[in-house]
């Protein structure tokens, strides 16, 4: 769609009356056509009200604070690594609880701790697969509780 969009189509677009494929074509056109985008903005029924809203003003300059905080705080490990690490620890505890074998559990636990210490290399498969089966139960339980905790704002989720 290279030419400008006819006004009746833009009106229907603003009202949400077009089918999705045509609507997407028009949205893509608007992203690259300031003239049509301006026309759409004027058609929006609350355009005057939106234009009357002043921008909130940042009360303080945050540059120094942010730079200081960024240099103080180490970057956090990605959530997937932390979750996997917790899952592995839970699995070690579960192994001990289920089998009650102190020697076997110690072996598993030492593998787990080594895996957690080398968290960055977990994804490369250096952890023995024997841990993986026992990790599943713990990781699943943690994932379920984590998912439940995330679902407290209906319909609004992390991207």
């Amino acid at each position, binding site marked *: 769609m290279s030419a400008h969009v006819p006004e009746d189509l833009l009106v229907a677009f603003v009202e949400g009356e077009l089918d999705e494929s045509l609507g997407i074509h028009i949205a893509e056109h608007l992203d690259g056509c300031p003239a049509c985008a301006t026309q759409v903005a004027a058609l929006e029924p609350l355009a005057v*009200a939106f234009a009357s809203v002043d921008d909130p003003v940042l009360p303080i300059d945050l540059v120094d604070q942010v730079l200081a905080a960024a240099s103080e705080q180490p970057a956090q490990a990605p959530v997937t690594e932390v979750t996997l690490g917790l899952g592995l620890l839970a699995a070690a505890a579960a192994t001990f609880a289920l089998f009650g074998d102190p020697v076997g559990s110690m072996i598993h636990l030492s593998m787990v701790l080594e895996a957690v210490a080398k968290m960055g290399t977990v994804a490369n498969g250096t952890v023995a697969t024997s841990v993986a089966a026992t990790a599943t139960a713990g990781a699943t339980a943690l994932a379920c509780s984590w998912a439940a905790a995330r679902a407290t704002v209906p319909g609004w989720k992390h991207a």
Partner: protein
Amino acid sequence: MRLHDGRDELPARIRLARAGDAGSRAWLVQRWQEPVYRFCRRMLSSDEDALDATQDTLVKMLHHLEQFDERRNFSSWVFGIARNRCIDEHRRRKRRSPDEPGEIVDSGPSPVELTARSQRADHLLSALDEIPPMYREVLVLYHFEHLKYGEIAEALDLPMGTVMNRIFRARKKLREAYEAMGGTQ
């Protein structure tokens, strides 16, 4: 500061900041602090929470610069971080007071004190506070931060069609809330 200012400079600044250049890190924070604050302030309706969320977002932006994919839109990526931080703040509020509304709404000036323009603005902002955050965020990004449909889709990690439909529904909900408050177009 609007985001199209200095757009040409951005790729080089990102690369320099990744390499640890202090000036470029400061440049990125300087450039994004106002848009991120505006977004957080409109999503959280509280100066203090918005300031905390802005600072956290910008610190995270610097920490995770290495993970930014240069084929993506940087604004979308930063607003995506801010959005996740706002979602976390809403969850925290709900945990703090589960029986109370999650929003903190400013008590504005009385209607007598308001001019027609500020009355409209006040009604619009109150109506925005009334609609669910998933609808509020698309309107804030589209109407106040002037992101394109494609950029919003990237920031929210949603297909274009979903963003479009969400904006339509959001406008409808906003209009209903606005009119219920006595707002005029």
